[in-house]
């Protein structure tokens, strides 16, 4: 990745960051490394308030946004990214803001916004690693939404998207299970599980239902109505469980299939603030 554009802010920060705020920043970085994300975010915010250099303020808010994102707090993440964008008067962190915004939207289950930001990052001018990241994520989102053609189009823009395309083709060749059919088949104990390929679960459900139905019939035959009522209560549980299990097994099957496809398309995507940057300069390090 071409690091030239980051050298200028690095030099600027070297000069300006020799002040008392360094302790706060170091503490925040340590908390981030220890995965104490909420506390780290507060410390980064404190640093942003203590420092005066706009690029440091922007970087500190980006760190805070990243920490909130890791803590699963998407609303404060957005707020921090907005602040970073405002402070970033030199437009040093445009890509980072876009990526974190995309990830925030992705986590907040807002695929439209996520796709918007990933599309921004997929432009040819974006550094290659970031562009690859965006294209893969974007393709995975399209795949989740059932837009397989759009997913294929995005992967076609990758320099080497063979493995991802293969994962997409495998997904496209398979077929989802219908939860309705699963539920209907669940009326026959065990059949709902079998429909989604869960053979052992199906047999367990069949055996349990058969035993309890036998118990009901036997106690009714023997006029033991107290025992009949107790066994019936449990049988209702097993029987409704079989129907629910048929629906849930189909949903699980579809979800597992989609997860596998997503994983195949994305590969092992990771990003984190570049650990080599000890100064308050925010730069994401992307790994595949």
């Amino acid at each position, binding site marked *: 990745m071409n690091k030239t554009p980051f050298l200028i802010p690095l030099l600027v920060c070297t000069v300006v960051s020799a002040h008392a705020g360094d302790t706060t920043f170091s503490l925040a970085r340590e908390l981030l490394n220890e995965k104490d994300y909420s506390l780290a975010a*507060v410390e980064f915010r*404190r640093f942003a*308030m203590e420092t005066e250099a706009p690029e440091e303020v922007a970087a500190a808010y980006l760190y805070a946004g990243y920490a909130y994102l890791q803590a699963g707090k998407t609303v404060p993440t957005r707020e921090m990214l907005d602040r970073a964008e405002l402070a970033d008067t030199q437009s040093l962190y445009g890509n980072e803001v876009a990526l974190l915004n995309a990830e925030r939207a992705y986590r907040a289950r807002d695929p439209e916004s996520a796709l918007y930001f990933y599309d921004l990052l997929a432009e040819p001018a974006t550094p290659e690693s970031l562009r690859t990241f965006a294209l893969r994520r974007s393709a995975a989102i399209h795949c989740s939404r059932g837009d397989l053609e759009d997913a294929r189009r995005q992967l076609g823009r990758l320099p080497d998207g063979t493995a991802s395309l293969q994962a997409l083709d495998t997904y496209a060749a398979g077929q989802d299970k219908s939860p309705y059919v699963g539920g209907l088949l669940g009326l026959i104990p065990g059949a709902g599980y079998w429909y989604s390929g869960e053979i052992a679960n199906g047999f*367990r459900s069949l055996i349990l239902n058969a035993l309890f139905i036998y118990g009901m019939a036997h106690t009714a035959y023997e006029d033991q109505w107290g025992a009949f009522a107790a066994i019936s209560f449990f049988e209702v549980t097993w029987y409704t469980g079989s129907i629910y299990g048929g629906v849930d097994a189909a949903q699980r099957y579809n979800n597992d299939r989609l997860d596998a496809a997503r994983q195949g398309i994305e590969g092992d995507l990771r990003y984190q603030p570049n650990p080599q940057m000890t100064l308050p300069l925010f730069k994401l390090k992307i790994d595949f």
Partner: protein
Amino acid sequence: MTNIPTILIAGVFFFCAPGFADRLTLAEDLFLKGEWGLCHRECRRALLEGEEPEMRFRLLDAMSAVRSGAAAEAVAPQLAAIVEESREVQVSALAAYELGRQQWRMDRPSEAFNSIAMAFHSTTNKELFLHAACSLSRLMKQNPELRQNQEGLISQINTSRNQWYEGLFAQCGKPEPANHEPAAPGWIIGFYRSQISPAIGDRCNLQPSCSEYFVEARERRGLLAVPMIADRFVREPDVNRRQREPLIMEDGRIRYADPIEHHDFWMNP
């Protein structure tokens, strides 16, 4: 206990204040986001370092302590001191309102009445005024003896009624003690946990355990918890066999994650 209108009061009140310090802004923001623990820590830090404005930090500190479950008995003296010492009318008015709510929580209605009435008379903040009026109205309804010789106050409260909005009435009732305990498990699970589980031992290898799963399913999905737990029993050996998502428990045991979210993600939230 999350009293949203009080947060609004604090927000309106503090953000309108001119010339506030950065650290106070951070503490307020944490408070407004419901990060009570972090807000408490931020205020303590500011107070230890002698940051100004001290009274606002103290008030914010007490308010976040209340919301993070501190006992009313512990917080009330702090609030009373702020009412006493603060020179800022709005700070002492908000502290008086919070103090009144805590006194009400401690079943001291006449003290609560005096404190909330003080907030009602002294505030210039509309939200706080409405909350104090509504709280006084509900307090007097619960304790009719407080109405004696209060015709003037009652008439002032009544004139504010046309500004009460939906939700205000429910938010101004008697504050309940902060409760961080999970919902009561019900008698079937209670019986299982107290009588059966100790006899048969800890047999569930899944996380959450089957009884926890049932309680959670009942909270989220009501009666559907019955088929959900039956499905869980049927699937349990399969989840154990697949050994996906192993978790190491505090006692060193390994359990396999099977959270309810994996089985109700397809239902409406």
